[in-house]
Structure formats: C-alpha cells, structure tokens
C-alpha cells in the first residue's frame, strides 16, 4: 500500500524499520510512500540554514527534516513524486557502495522500462531518461543494515522547488528555470499520466525474483517510529545540528 506521512514520520519509519531489521525482528523491507504535507529533506551533512528558506517553508506549511543519508536537499511535493526505501541486512549487498546503488537503481530502471521509458543508471546515484535526471537516491549503512531511499519524480514544479530551497530569489529567472528543466524531467513530462501505473511498475520491478509478501508495520515499528519522530526528527537538536 502506498502510504503518505509527514516528513518526520517518514524518516522515523525508515529508522524504526532499520532497527527491527538489525534485530532480526522483521524481514528486509521495501516501502513506497509520499509526503503529506509536502516537505524538504536535507542531507545528513548539510546546514539547514544554508540550504532551506525556512520562512517560506513555514508560510507554506512545508515540513523540513534532516535525513540519515548524505546528499543534497530535496523538495518532496505531495503530488510530485514516488519515494521508496529499501531496508535490508548489509550482507545482502556488495560492500562497494556505488555498485549497490547500481543494483537498487537497476530495479527502478527496470520498472521504467516496463513503462516504455529508456532509463539508465548514472553513477553515482542518479537515474536518467533521455539524458535528464528523473530519480535521485541516497544510501546509509548503520548497524549492519543498508537503507537506501530515493525519489522518482512524477511531476516537477521548479519555481516551487526554488522558492523553498535557498537559491537567491533574484536568481530565479526564467533562464535558470529553463536550465533545470533541461537537466531534470518527470514521469508526467515523459508521458506517464497515471501515477498509480508507475507505482505498480515499481512494485513489480522491486520484487521481481524475490520471495515476498505485502506486509504492514508491526506494532513495535509504529511505536518506535512515533517515538523517533518526536524525540529525534522533529527536534531542533537533530535538524539544526549543522
């Protein structure tokens, strides 16, 4: 089931699930989700004040959260993307991080191929279609568990994205927007009008060749996620640590 959560719960669920996988309490997990309300996530090493227009986010009721993974700031539009997480023991994958990106991103590439899109993995962690980025991904490995999450862009509103990320407002010119639109694309622009169709293609591709069942969160995962959302992901200490 495709779930929508707020940014803090989404990050907390990833961590609660990682802990449960580390403790052997749940099987390796793949989840697909969205962000409600829309949100900005920043990379683990980024400075929130350098990257995000916090005032603009507050005005527009957009959540801001620090991820456990590195990489850059991402605007997650409520309607604009499909996000996934893969949470599994590290030993299921190669130690070579870029090679493991290639494996998991390969599942997205395969999903896009079933939608008749000629997608390819672009190292380090992107997926492109027709030379334009359609998916960004980030990975961490902690306590023997690999967590990779990433987004598949369904729709793209560059102006909105720039309004919440710290780009000089004077610089948000039509030329700059055109330049981003030359480098980034979305499923909608590639002719995939049905988000659900894309979701189904991803589920199919991510599970291909694997024994799996559609599950739900355990009570412990939900309780732990609630705790982590409150005591970690919503806190100033976490989000403003850099």
């Amino acid at each position, binding site marked *: 089931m495709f779930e929508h959560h707020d940014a803090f719960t989404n990050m907390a669920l990833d961590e609660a699930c990682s802990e449960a996988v580390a403790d052997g309490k749940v099987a390796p997990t793949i989840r697909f989700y969205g962000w409600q309300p829309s949100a900005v996530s920043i990379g683990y*090493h980024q400075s929130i004040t350098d990257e995000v227009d916090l005032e603009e986010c507050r005005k527009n009721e957009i959540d801001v959260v620090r991820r456990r993974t*590195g990489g850059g700031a991402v605007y997650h539009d409520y309607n604009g993307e499909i996000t996934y997480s893969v949470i599994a023991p590290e030993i299921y994958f190669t130690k070579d991080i870029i090679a493991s990106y290639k494996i998991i991103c390969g599942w997205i590439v395969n999903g896009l191929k079933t939608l008749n899109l000629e997608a390819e993995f672009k190292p380090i962690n992107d997926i492109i279609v027709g030379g334009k980025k359609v998916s960004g991904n980030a990975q961490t490995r902690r306590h023997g568990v690999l967590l990779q999450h990433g987004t598949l862009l369904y729709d793209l509103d560059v102006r909105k994205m720039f309004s919440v990320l710290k780009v000089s407002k004077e610089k948000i010119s039509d030329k700059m927007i055109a330049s981003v639109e030359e480098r980034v694309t979305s499923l909608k622009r590639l002719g995939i009008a049905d988000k659900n169709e894309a979701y189904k293609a991803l589920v199919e591709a991510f599970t291909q060749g694997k024994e799996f069942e559609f599950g739900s969160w355990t009570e412990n995962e939900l309780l732990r996620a609630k705790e982590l959302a409150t005591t970690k992901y919503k806190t100033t200490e976490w989000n403003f640590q850099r």
Partner: protein
Amino acid sequence: MLRMEVELSESQEKAKYVKITGDFFIHPEDSLVVIEKTLVMSNASEGMETIALKIEEICKSQGIQMIGITPQAIASTFFEAIKQAKETNGALE
C-alpha cells in the same frame, strides 16, 4: 558542494573549530567528526599535501569511504577557509 567554517586559534595558524557541510556522502556518516578533529589538530604550516595525506590515512585506517569529496578537496577548502578567516580577522583589527 563543500563548505567549511573555521574559527582561528590565537596563533592564526590553527583552527580551534572546524565545521564541514555539504551534499557529499561519507560512510560511516559520523566519521565526518573525525575529519573535523583532524583539521583542528593540524597546523596550516604543515602544507596542503600533508594534511590531505593525513585525511587519506585516517580514511584508510578507519574504513571511511567518501563519495563526492576527496581528502585533497577537504585540505584545499581548509586552507582557503583559514586564509579567509585571517583576512576577516585582519579587517576587524
């Protein structure tokens, strides 16, 4: 993108505080603190190459993997940050 904030020590050749931020990847993530500590313990007079080597050795010995940044880029940004901090301090005096 790699940003570095430094606070100079009395001698102006060392940093008593270093904060590195950016959109890179370091595995394990918390080893960035180790890199920052290494820079705090370094003296600018050691030279950029020596400091880059120091970071490289720490990465090797502690199994730290960097993606999107290199020890050389960190050392070079450190020198630039020290230089800028000296200029700012000079301008304030």
